[in-house]
């Protein structure tokens, strides 16, 4: 068996989720190769080659791959797919965008968001927003899947000595082009990779009050998230959303502030190791999943929390 992983990267460095995918691949077993497709992505390729447990890094360095457009990356993947028993992409917006395209071009189905490896052909994945867990066996010749990074431990980012091979194939779909992007700039860790996450809900009242959470986050090295209610109310942008329709997080510590705990939010954070809830409504469902609940006014509790850290 051999496994090809689509590396998530920003050309300079490899995104941490790739390390979780290497662990998932190790649980399947077999040789593990990484594809780094990008433009001027030498930095990412070197970082990929250093990951423990990787046999080979395939680098496709071309302007066609600069923005990870699914039309181009999927054709590249299909060209490289020969001989691999498994093809894996992270369950990120980039991975979800490209993996089904790869599967369709290969004429196979795709397993989305696997959270456990039962056997080389059998996997567990959440359905119905995580309210049920399905065990699925794939009979396809090639297993194409996306992997939920938070369900697997990270492999060591160093200690590996993979060979690096360059691939000159250029696939450029004529009818799609990148116009621009607006990426949130933050010195804080990414939501899905942070070991501590503090999130605010409708109870925050407005966007300015998220500054209270930012101050706590700065002390804890935490990422700041939000519930869908806070996003829908316009307090904060959608890329901060934790939940079924946002990001899935599973940090060591999750602090929910002014969040009632709708099913759709719980779906995104209930695998966190320790959950703290601060809410003035003692009946709020969030307390049913919280390890430590504090009933009280967040506008008093959060500044006090910051002061005591």
């Amino acid at each position, binding site marked *: 068996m051999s496994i090809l992983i689509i590396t998530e990267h920003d050309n300079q460095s490899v995104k941490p989720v790739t390390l979780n995918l290497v662990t998932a691949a190790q649980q399947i077993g077999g040789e593990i190769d990484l594809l780094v497709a990008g433009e001027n992505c030498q930095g990412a390729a070197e970082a990929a080659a250093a990951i423990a447990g990787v046999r080979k890094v395939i680098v496709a360095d071309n302007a066609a791959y600069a923005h990870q457009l699914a039309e181009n990356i999927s054709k590249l993947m299909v060209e490289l797919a020969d001989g691999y028993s498994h093809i894996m992409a992270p369950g990120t917006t980039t991975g979800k965008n490209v993996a089904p395209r790869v599967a*369709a071009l290969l004429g196979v189905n795709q397993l989305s968001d696997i959270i456990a490896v039962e056997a080389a052909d059998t996997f567990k994945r959440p359905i119905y927003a995580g309210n*049920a867990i399905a*065990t699925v066996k794939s009979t396809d010749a090639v297993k194409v899947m996306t992997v939920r990074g938070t369900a697997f431990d990270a492999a060591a980012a160093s200690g590996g000595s993979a060979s690096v091979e360059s691939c000159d194939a250029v696939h450029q779909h004529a*009818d799609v082009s990148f116009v621009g992007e607006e990426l949130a700039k933050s010195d804080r860790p990414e939501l899905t990779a942070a070991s501590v996450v503090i999130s605010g809900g409708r109870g925050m009242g407005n966007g300015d009050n998220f500054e209270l959470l930012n101050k706590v986050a700065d002390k804890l090295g935490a990422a700041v998230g939000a519930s869908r209610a806070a996003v829908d109310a316009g307090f904060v942008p959608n*890329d901060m959303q934790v939940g079924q329709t946002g990001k899935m997080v599973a940090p060591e510590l999750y602090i929910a502030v002014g969040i009632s705990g709708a099913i759709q939010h719980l779906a995104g954070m209930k695998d966190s190791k320790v959950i703290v809830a601060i809410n003035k409504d003692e009946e709020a469902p969030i307390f049913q999943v919280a390890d*430590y609940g504090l009933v009280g006014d967040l506008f008093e509790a959060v500044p006090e929390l910051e002061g005591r850290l």
Partner: protein
Amino acid sequence: MKVLVAVKRVIDYNVKVRVKSDRSDVDLANVKMALNPFCEIAVEEAVRLKEAGTASEVVVVSIGSKACQEQLRTALALGADRAIQVEAADQPDALSVARILQKVAEEESADLVLLGKQAIDSDNNQTGQMLAALMDRPQATFASEVVVEGDSLKVTREVDGGLQTLSLKLPAVVTTDLRLNEPRYASLPNIMKAKKKPLDVKTPDELGVQLASGAELISVEPPAERQAGIKVGSVEELVEKLRNEAKVIA
């Protein structure tokens, strides 16, 4: 511009799903079903394009047993012009659905195919991408804004780090995210009118597609339940517990 919208009948999003006692699947007997919320957003977007004079016709298609005609009627009540049901067992696999949609899109000469980004039952998030691949056409998944510019689309996508904007030449496939629009409620007169709109029934055979899934559902289990912990009386106590009991902060 002709718009094809694919829709799916799923469990109503307000219903808490339960696993069958034999763990073979989830229990959908006597459960309220509805139009998948992301599909509803896709229908709304198509209808708005028609209202703006950009789209000439909005066709909705669903693949499943006769029951999905109920959701097709809902889409018609929201403003779609006509509907197609492709008769199949419920819960066909994503690749088969994409192959059927490809044939329907060809037959209809659709310029734009709109789908929800995912169905809230299988949570697959695949069909639109697969369809675009089979058609060898551009895709814009997780759309939060769609602007038609002549024979192209400018689509803003919700990606992990923020927003990305792509330009796609038509024909193209777009999948909707939550913030694309807020779907309207169907008015009673429109619900009545929808009953008279055309609804064709086709079979996969007629379209030349054979349904074959490469995945087998072995079992379904409920997720591990999380136990409620304790209530603390003060922030001071909370910090003490986090430091010394949970040991998650320094």
